[in-house]
């Protein structure tokens, strides 16, 4: 099946090929079995975990077809309530295999007032099966709620990974995301945050790593409505092989969001002369009293750094790995779970061989 989705909030010329993503011949699973590869880990008793019947439409999301698939055929519907004021960690550990190859899920995370939590969603292939993931994650951050949400895509390069995320942040809510986007033949993420409350704070740190024929399409949108809202995107990645990466980042200052601050950064390291990077860092502004900035850069690894490390006895691959890992370090160090951190570093090593 051919799919066209992940539309940008503002259009550019058609021939720039960045208004949406067009994927051809995507195998859409018909008979959806139960997904038995999910385990809840961590401080489970500090969260309310319920089955859910609710379906809410997203403002942006991953397009009509994938939305409808979740509405009609989801095999996981989970409602998570974060209720504890101390920082508690919940991990949703998804393992994809030949027995659990299709996940169509609808998750709603409710961060109760003044709650503090870390929620990790780890999607990992444990065999060579071409898996299919279509996830929809809604996060409601009530007043003064604080959360660190970590999403790890560690699927194999034969799988399809489609994730749509929508956040609503009320007054003084502080939601930080870390997205580690390594896997999938096609990995498409639509991320939307509505910074509705005054002093609401949303930061999104992403690391992507693409090789072979991977297609990575990231469409991040943050809309500031509340006064002194703070929207921040920091996206770092490396692409190799004939990987195609599209980064579309939009910070939209809506009228009334006085003293809001928005900052968007993207840095892409290109490791081969056949990998392709397109970026569209957008700032939209209808409020005078704001500070908005974006920066985007790309290029190959600094040859002087590489040479220096090689004179110290490292091979070229080892030196490259070290430099790339160093670039990602700030984002990885922000994760408190040591096991997860270690797993991310192992994945980087594996992908950069």
């Amino acid at each position, binding site marked *: 099946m051919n799919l066209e989705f992940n539309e940008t909030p503002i259009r550019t*010329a058609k021939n720039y090929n960045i208004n949406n993503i067009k994927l051809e011949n995507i195998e859409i699973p018909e008979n959806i079995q139960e997904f038995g590869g999910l385990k809840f880990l961590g401080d489970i008793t500090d969260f309310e975990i319920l089955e859910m019947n609710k379906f809410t439409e997203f403002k942006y999301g991953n397009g009509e077809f994938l939305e409808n698939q979740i509405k009609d055929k989801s095999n996981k519907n989970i409602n998570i309530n974060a209720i504890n004021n101390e920082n508690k960690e919940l991990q949703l550990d998804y393992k994809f295999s030949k027995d659990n190859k299709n996940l169509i899920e609808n998750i709603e995370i409710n961060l109760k007032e003044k709650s503090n939590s870390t929620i990790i969603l780890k999607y990992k292939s444990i065999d060579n099966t071409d898996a299919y993931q279509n996830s929809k994650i809604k996060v409601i951050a009530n007043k003064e709620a604080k959360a660190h949400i970590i999403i790890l895509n560690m699927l194999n390069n034969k799988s399809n990974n489609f994730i749509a995320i929508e956040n609503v942040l009320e007054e003084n809510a502080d939601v930080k995301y870390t997205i580690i986007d390594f896997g999938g033949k096609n990995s498409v993420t639509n991320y939307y945050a509505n910074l509705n409350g005054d002093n609401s704070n949303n930061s999104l740190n992403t690391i992507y790593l693409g090789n072979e024929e991977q297609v990575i399409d990231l469409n991040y949108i943050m809309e500031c409505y509340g006064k002194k809202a703070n929207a921040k995107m920091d996206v770092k990645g490396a692409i190799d092989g004939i990987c195609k990466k599209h980064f579309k980042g939009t910070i939209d200052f809506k009228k009334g969001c006085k003293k809001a601050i928005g900052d968007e950064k993207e840095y892409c390291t290109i490791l*081969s002369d056949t990998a*392709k990077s*397109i*970026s569209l*860092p957008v700032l939209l*502004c209808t409020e005078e009293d704001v500070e908005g*900035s974006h920066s985007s*850069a790309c290029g190959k690894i600094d040859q002087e750094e590489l040479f220096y490390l090689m004179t110290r006895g490292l091979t070229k691959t080892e030196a490259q790995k070290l430099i790339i890992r160093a670039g990602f370090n700030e984002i990885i160090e922000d994760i408190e779970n040591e096991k997860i951190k270690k797993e991310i570093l192992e994945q980087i090593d594996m992908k950069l061989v």
Partner: protein
Amino acid sequence: MKTKLEEINRNIYDIKNKDEYDFKIKKGLTPEIIKEISKQKNDPEWMKDFRLKALEVYEKLELPTWGPDLSELNMDEIATYVRPKSKMTGNWDEVPEDIKNTFDKLGIPEAEKKSLAGVGAQYDSEVVYHSMKNELLEQGVIYTDMETAVREYPDLVKAHFMKCVPVYDHKFVALHGAVWSGGSFVYVPKGVKVEIPIQSYFRLNSPESGQFEHTLIIVDEGASLHFIEGCSAPKYNKVNLHAGCVELYVKDNAYLRYSTIENWSKNMLNLNTKKAIIGKNAKVDWVSGSFGSKISMLYPMSILNGEGAKTEYTGISFAGKGQNLDTGFKVVHNAPNTSSIVNSKSISKNGGTATYRALVRVNENAKNSKVSVDCESLMLDDISRSDTIPVNDIKTDEVEFSHEAKIGKISDKSIFYLMTRGLSEEDAKAMIVRGFAEPISKELPIEYAVEMNNLINLELEGAIG
């Protein structure tokens, strides 16, 4: 705190002459109208055929699905050809009085006397005055109106006309191909350095009409030129259309500086297309100021085809009440060791919308290329809008690419600092706005800096405080 900046004083630009003409084509767009324009212009057969083919392309292409809303444009209400009641002349005294007065007030003959090597002045659809200094003529420089070029230099024109900007680029380029009239043709022979700028000024006086001038400049190997273009029109109640086309061929080791001040009236839809093809070790510098028009969609483009080719874009736009200025720059790196520098600024106030829309494309073979983009937007009130929409398409690892953008108001800290130095709040704000525009105005030649000063600095100085 609100910044009180007045709208640009347009008095000299809004002078309306009576809509007198020698010939005005009926409104609308049909093959018969195109044939009539071609007949009126005494086109050679190949040009008539070209126009008709362009019309076919125009009818097939859709309006852009992005950018400002163009739904108010109704080609059935636009007359695409208006011939003024004047023949082209090289003697200023022969230009009819009312037309002459308009250009006098815009300072064109004055600028010619002081600091220009050549001048062209277009009124509605035709060039009414053209002159060039003898020294350039002796060096083999050609500077003439496009119609004369089509007749007298057919091989040169045929080889270049709408090859850099093909008619299928977009709908309004196809429209231009069908109805183009007037404009300038410049050829600078190999190795000739034109030390003093050449200027063409385009004035659209007739209401409910369009101006579709074609500018074709060829700077041959090792040559150099500074070309200046100015545009203005008085304001009418119904929309006027400007869909000009600029094609620049800058051959190996050549240099071209292309400066523009567009100050169309606020009923004008300005859908202009400008493109340069740049050869080995050649360079094109664009300096662009966009002030007038109701809607502008203007994105000059450099195609760096030769190894070591360079381009630099310095642009400013000022969007006031009722204006939607969608401007920016496009660059395509097609060869190794090419470089581009972009420096763009915009100011929006009083409900105006300023958009920076851009493309950087670095193709596979553009190894060791460098790109640096910097854009800054200043919002002067909370009823205006400012957007930054850049596309960066990088297809090689051997590249150094960086893009930075900032958006916001005048910093309270800067105002405070200047006030502690004895300036009033209004003077402090005016100084900051002038400082914001200064990197662009200093790039303009003196005679155009004067016009820019009319448009920003002097007006702001008079209006604030």
